[in-house]
Each structure stands twice: as structure tokens, then as C-alpha cells.
């Protein structure tokens, strides 16, 4: 078996609250190969953002991490702050939901792009400037030379997000983590960003983890998909399979709640109730109080993800959606 670029094993993140430590991420395992786009889906509070932050060692103060995060064989959880600094930006980079907070408002775009290159790649100022202009061209910012001298506030939301992606790409990372990269954007702008991420993966062999609750976005760009609920893995597998033949009742519920372009006028089918908050995760399967297929055992036994098909993991022992069941 060839080693994946990123291998996360039995990762748990516990956050301190007034009522003690509670798991935001609970025993999560997944791997990402070079050149692959993997999606992590789930509602707010499902632990998807905490999973992303744990890769960067950027969890809130007091967070307790157990398990293993290996990037190209290097154990990230064992690195010192100084060692991590050489990994962040250089090996793995992040794009967050809101470009207004990820870009520095009073530094010119050029400075924000070139400082990464000079720090991580050791190139000189003139060379960094050239590369920065080329990068802006890659993300389709018109008139890159002028854009380098401009400030983030002078661009529209869609252009700012493209600039934020350019900053993340500045040191040529091998893995890009995009946390809700298009949620704040209009569909037309979103389409441009999705096409850009897809192209960068194919051209550079870069791996991307896309975190979003938008299954339409997943369908468009992610080859594999992991669905999280209450900090745990509910289901994972090839995106096409999960979206057409979901096996976990939660995945099914997320799909049923979506408006269908071909089914206009019919009421949406929401999942009843809301996701549990930190520290109030039910025993057994965390989804059982909202699950219409729940059995008595679901409240008692904690389901573990098991392989049900090639590359398809499912944490739902009753498996009520199995074809032929």
C-alpha cells in the first residue's frame, strides 16, 4: 500500500468548557492522497472545522489532542511550535470562509503574497514579486501588477477569496484545506472558485480537503466524501456513491433536505430536531434521537465505522438503507 499524503488516525480533540472537557472530534480516521479532492461534510458543530484546525496545530487554548496526524510520514502532533511553522504555509495551507478575516486589511496584496515566498522558499524580493504576479494571474485577477499594490478592501468578495487562495498557494503547499471556501459567495463566483480548485489539483498534483455543508459543491469537485456528525464519522466513500446511494440515515436526511432542481414545488423534507451541542452528545449513536430508523440498540451501542463496500465506510450497524435490506 502506498503511503497517503495525509493520514489521520483515531484523532480526538477535546475542548475545555465550563462543564469539563468535551469531544469536538471523536475518534476520526481518514487519508488523503496527492492530487485528490476530499470533502468533509456536516452541519455546524459536527467537528469539521476543529478537524481542520487540528492539522495546523491551531486549536483553541487548552484543547487536548490524541491520535495521529501524519503528513508524508511526519507526525504533526509531535512537532514543536517552531517545527510546525515550517510546515504551515509550506506543506499545508488553509483558506477560510471569510476572506475579510483571512487577509490583512492594511497590507498591500503583494506583501501578503511575497512574505510567504521569501520566508518559506528563500527567494529574493524581485523573484517573489514575479511569482506573486504569476499567481494572481493563475487565480484570474485582472491586471496583476496593479493588484499587487492594492489593498484587500479594494476588491469584491469573490476576488478577495481568489486572492486568499493565491496567498495560501504562495509557498506551493502540497495540501490545501478549504473551510467553507465558497459559502459566503454568490453561485456565479462560487462556480469560478470551484473550477480553480479543480484545475490546481490537476495541474499541480496538490491535494485539497474541502469542508462544507453544501453537497452540491461536494458533487462538483470532491472525489471522496466523509460525512461527520457530532464529531464522529457517519459515512465515507466515493462522492458519487454517497450522493446516489447513501447508506447512513443522516446522509440520506441531508440529501432529502436539499431543494431539487427537478422537483420544484414539493416541500423539502427536513431532518427533525437539531444537532447536539458540545457536551450533550447522546449515548450510543449520536444521531439516534433524530433517526427515523433507530432501533433499541442504537441508543446503547456506539457504532464504529466498518467497510461495507470497496472504500465505503459506514457507522450504522442496522444499515437500514442497504439495497435489498
Amino acid at each position, binding site marked *: 500500500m502506498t503511503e497517503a499524503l495525509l493520514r489521520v488516525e483515531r484523532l480526538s480533540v477535546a475542548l475545555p468548557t465550563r462543564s469539563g472537557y468535551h469531544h469536538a472530534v471523536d475518534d476520526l480516521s481518514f487519508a488523503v492522497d496527492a492530487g485528490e479532492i476530499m470533502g468533509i461534510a456536516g*452541519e455546524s458543530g459536527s467537528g469539521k472545522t476543529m478537524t481542520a484546525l487540528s492539522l495546523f496545530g491551531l486549536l483553541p487554548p487548552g484543547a487536548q489532542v490524541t491520535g495521529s496526524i501524519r503528513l508524508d510520514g511526519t507526525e504533526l502532533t509531535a512537532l514543536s511550535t517552531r517545527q510546525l511553522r515550517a510546515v504551515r504555509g509550506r506543506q499545508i495551507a488553509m483558506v477560510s470562509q471569510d476572506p475579510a478575516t483571512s487577509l490583512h486589511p492594511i497590507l498591500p496584496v503583494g506583501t501578503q503574497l511575497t512574505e510567504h515566498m521569501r520566508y518559506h522558499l528563500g527567494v529574493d524580493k524581485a523573484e517573489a514579486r514575479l511569482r506573486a504576479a504569476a499567481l494572481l494571474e493563475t487565480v484570474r485577477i485582472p491586471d496583476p501588477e496593479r493588484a499587487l499594490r492594492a489593498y484587500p478592501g479594494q476588491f469584491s468578495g469573490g476576488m478577495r477569496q481568489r486572492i486568499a487562495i493565491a496567498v495560501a498557494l504562495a509557498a506551493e503547499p502540497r495540501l490545501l484545506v478549504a473551510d467553507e471556501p465558497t459559502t459566503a459567495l454568490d453561485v456565479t463566483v462560487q*462556480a469560478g472558485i*470551484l473550477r480553480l480548485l479543480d484545475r490546481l489539483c490537476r495541474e499541480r498534483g496538490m491535494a485539497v480537503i474541502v469542508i462544507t455543508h453544501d453537497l*452540491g459543491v461536494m458533487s462538483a469537485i470532491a472525489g471522496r466524501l466523509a460525512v461527520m456528525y457530532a464529531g464522529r464519522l457517519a459515512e465515507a466513500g466515493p462522492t458519487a456513491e454517497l*450522493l446516489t446511494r447513501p447508506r447512513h440515515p443522516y446522509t440520506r436526511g441531508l440529501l432529502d433536505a436539499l431543494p431539487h432542481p427537478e422537483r*420544484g414545488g414539493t416541500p423539502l423534507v427536513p*431532518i427533525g430536531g*437539531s444537532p447536539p451541542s458540545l457536551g450533550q452528545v447522546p449515548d450510543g449513536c449520536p444521531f439516534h434521537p433524530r433517526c427515523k430508523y433507530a432501533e433499541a440498540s442504537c441508543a446503547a451501542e456506539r457504532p464504529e465505522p466498518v467497510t461495507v463496500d470497496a472504500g465505503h465506510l459506514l457507522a450504522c450497524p442496522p444499515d437500514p438503507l442497504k439495497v435489498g435490506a
Partner: protein
Amino acid sequence: MSSGETVLELAGVAVEYGRRGQRVRAVDGVSLTVARGQITGLVGESGCGKSSLARAAVGLEPLAAGTVTFEGRPVTPLSRRRRPEYLRGLQMVFQDPYESLNPRRKVGEIIADGVTLGGGSHADGLARAAELLDRVGLPASAADSYPHEFSGGQRQRIAIARTLAAGPACLIADEPISALDASAQAQIANLLGELVSGSSLGLVLVSHDLSVVRQVAHRVAVMYLGRIVEIGDTETVWSNPRHPYTEALVAAIPRADGAGVLPADLPGDVPDPASPPSGCRFHPRCPIAQDSCREHDQRLAPVAGREIACEVRATVKAGS
């Protein structure tokens, strides 16, 4: 007060903002009617003026031109004077239920305000609050809790119950679901549909989420840079968009069908409304633009069962 009758009418509405000494027209000559018992969807990219139009419709923004008429009487901009009594039937639901509810007051009191401000007693208000909580799908016990005790979707239900307490004939909902979680979005979209269906309530649903508008709205108006470019029955517009901008919007929606198809890109950004392009405002991004589009202002004209503001498409249709 029958379903289908016009409750709110906007005619030639323009909204302007001052920016560094110059006037920027966010809404430029929009006419729209809202019918009872129907949801009218208003969609477009950010900066297209849909929120400005929504605010102008309830009197939160002064009009630079045009009129807004609610139940036959003029909607006057909010001022230091008391809002006219007859405008109590015109209410707004805001985007963010974390900001639109007073955190220091109990839910029951917040909802009861709608009744007491209309001259009802406090007891009537609390009784009505219990009814309305039930109508929006919350337990009556919610009345004794504070807003922070609820999730985003539940708070938006509370905000909707509060507007319903005023006994509205028309609701303007500005992005009521975009701040919510995926499953809560479906719940609130369904709730809006239930409130309007079979009632005499008219609803304007402003949203950048086209698929939700498609699901619940009877009619849809597509805005671009301050103007309506296509308007008609949702089904007609969606299944076969005729304006090139509507086409681009519909094609850009990613579908969760597992087919792995990248959505179509619409190059370019929405131009600065301070210096809109001449002629058709969409022409710099339009795949079918002709020289004449640079010069001719486009007017809405009926084409294939809806109205579009595109003379290229209108001519092709008439000629074919």
C-alpha cells in the same frame, strides 16, 4: 382579501445612496406586484440591489423615485414621526436571528409586543404569543425562555412569530434562511410556504440561494445591477430561462447528484453601481451581446410566458 389580489405594489422604484459626494443608484426603476397567498422570490448576486429594494418596500429606505403602495395606500419612509397605523400590516423578517431579537427579553414578551403595540392588552399579547409559537412549530413553553436558549433555526421561527403578531397582510423576508444550518434551512423554507399557502398573506422572499426560491416561490424576479432582468412564474423561468443572466445563474448552481459536473462559470464581476455600463447593464459579461446592447436601454417585454429585459432574445423569439 382573496388570494391572488395585489397587496403590495412597487412602481418605478429607485433607491440611492450617497458615497463620497456622488449618488449611487442601488435600485433603478423597479416595478413589482406582490399577490396575496403567493411567495414572490427576489434573486440576484450580492450588490444587485435586492436588499435595498426589500428595505424600500417596507419604508426603511427613502425612495429616490417611484412609489410603493400597500393595500392602496402609500408606504412612507420611516421618520421621527409615528409610522402610520395602516402600515402595521407590512412587516419585515431580517436575515440574522442572532441580531434581530433582544437578548434580554423573554420570547413571549418579544412576540406579545406585536399585539400590545397594536392596542391590545398584555394578556392578549401573551395568549397570542402562545398560539403563534405553536403555529411556527415551537412549544408554548418557549415563551418563558430567552433567545440565546434556542438554535438559529428556532430563533428565526421566533422572529417570524413576532412579525405574525402584528397580523400582517404582507411580509418582506430578507435572506431569512441564509444564516441557518442546512437542516434548519429546509424547515424555515417549508414554514414560509405553509404560512402563505391558502392564506391572504403576501410574501417577498429575498435570497441569493436560488434553489430555495425555486422550491417555495410562485413567482420569481431576477435582479441585476439595480434592475429586474427577468420575471415570471418560477416554474417557467427556471425550467427554461430566457435572459442570458438568468441562464448563467441557473447553470452555476452545483447539483448534488454525484455526477461530478463542475458548474458553469460566469466570468467577470458585478460592475460598480456608481458607474454602470451603458445600455444593457449585463452586456460586458453577456455571451450573446451585440453592438446595439451597448447603446439600448433594455425594457421588460413579454417573451415565452414571462418578461425579460433583453432585446436580442426578444427579437430572436419574435422572428422565429
